[in-house]
């Protein structure tokens, strides 16, 4: 596939290499990569693996900025390799390193386990107080567009870890929960279908929680999906303070609207067109 590459120019990839069994510390290896317009960093890495060094290791999956697997440090900026065109950020040299603030498993692969441990501690799912309803929901829950708007942007997070890599607080305090887990904690606490805000506050209100954030805002700048974690953390701080002062509005999880198939259709909605297949 690389024979037909319409070469525009050569960019030197300064790639961070590290194998825990072989190396005592990471080192940099330089690879010349022929680059055409529109070529992404992920494609550049594929070129290296197929033509220059098959031992290069990185993580990727969807190639379209959806899965969040290929987060890495490109020219000092945490972002997605699949979502970044080489010529947009480099003319002659490009540094490629694993996301900082994480242990490195190998080459460009960060160990995201610590992030997901903190993520799970924040209960990133909707919790209903009724166990039966929690395990086997019997209907839909009413939520207005305004209520959806409260948390919608935070649900676009793909857990790539770029915000965690950009966070200066996490760089000095490895126990700090970090932007992603705190944002996801807020995302579910702000959801009117949820009833576990108090449980999450016990986690986010600790010494390594929301109050360690000094609002540097780097997480929001780094997010490749346009999520604003810094904003979520400020909302979270407000929630925590108002709750402590007993000034927070008490909210019960929203009621169930109706069971499956038991809803009434809006008469203004016309009938579906007749079937044309399988008649």
């Amino acid at each position, binding site marked *: 596939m690389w024979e037909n590459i319409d070469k525009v120019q050569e960019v030197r990839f300064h790639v961070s290499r590290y194998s825990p069994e072989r190396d005592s510390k990471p080192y940099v290896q330089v690879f010349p990569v022929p680059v055409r317009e529109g070529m992404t960093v992920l494609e550049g890495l594929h070129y290296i693996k197929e033509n220059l060094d098959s031992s290069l290791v990185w993580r990727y999956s969807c190639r379209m900025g959806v899965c969040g697997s290929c987060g890495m440090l490109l020219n000092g900026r945490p972002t997605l390799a699949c979502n970044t065109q080489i010529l947009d950020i480099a003319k002659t040299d490009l540094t490629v390193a694993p996301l900082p603030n994480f242990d490195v498993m190998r080459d460009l692969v960060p160990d995201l386990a610590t992030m997901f441990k903190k993520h799970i501690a924040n209960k990133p799912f909707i919790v209903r107080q009724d166990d039966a309803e929690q395990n086997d929901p019997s209907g839909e829950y009413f939520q207005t567009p305004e209520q959806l708007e409260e948390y919608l942007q935070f649900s676009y997070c793909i857990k790539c870890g770029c915000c965690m890599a950009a966070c200066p607080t996490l760089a000095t*305090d490895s126990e700090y929960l970090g932007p992603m887990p705190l944002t996801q904690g807020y995302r579910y606490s702000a959801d009117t279908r949820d009833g576990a805000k108090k449980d999450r*506050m016990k986690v986010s209100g*600790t*010494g390594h929680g929301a*109050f*360690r954030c000094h609002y540097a805002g780097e997480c929001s700048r780094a997010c490749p999906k346009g999520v604003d974690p810094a904003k979520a953390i400020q909302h979270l701080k407000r929630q925590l*303070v108002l709750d*402590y002062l007993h000034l927070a509005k008490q909210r019960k999880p929203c009621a169930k609207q109706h069971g499956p198939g038991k809803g009434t259709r809006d008469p203004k909605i016309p009938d579906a067109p007749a079937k044309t297949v399988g008649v």
Partner: protein
Amino acid sequence: MRETKLWTWFMLAGLVILILLGLHMTVAHMGGLTGVGVTKAGDSVNEANSQARDATLFYPVVYVILLAAALFHGLYGLRVILFELGLSSTTQKAVSALLLIVGVGLFGFGTWGVFAAHALYAGRG
């Protein structure tokens, strides 16, 4: 939730400082214009006016509240900055204990000074 409690009081202390420092500016630095807290002849910060304010109960109480708020706000802020240095859990506890002792000590000393002055000047009538 301990950090939530400390953070909330940190912010409330900031609010108290804002209000009481406003009062301090009004009395001590703009007394000539406002006339607030100026009962004797001359400048608002001269000895006679300072002693007259100390002789009342209102100003000493304000001083003590301001001292408490400023100490808590300042020392909690310092604690946060020190924690940023990546201290171990044991060191963090030691720093918290030290700052608590320093804060309580300074508050006790300041309160004693304020009410000693109050007792001295209130007795003079």
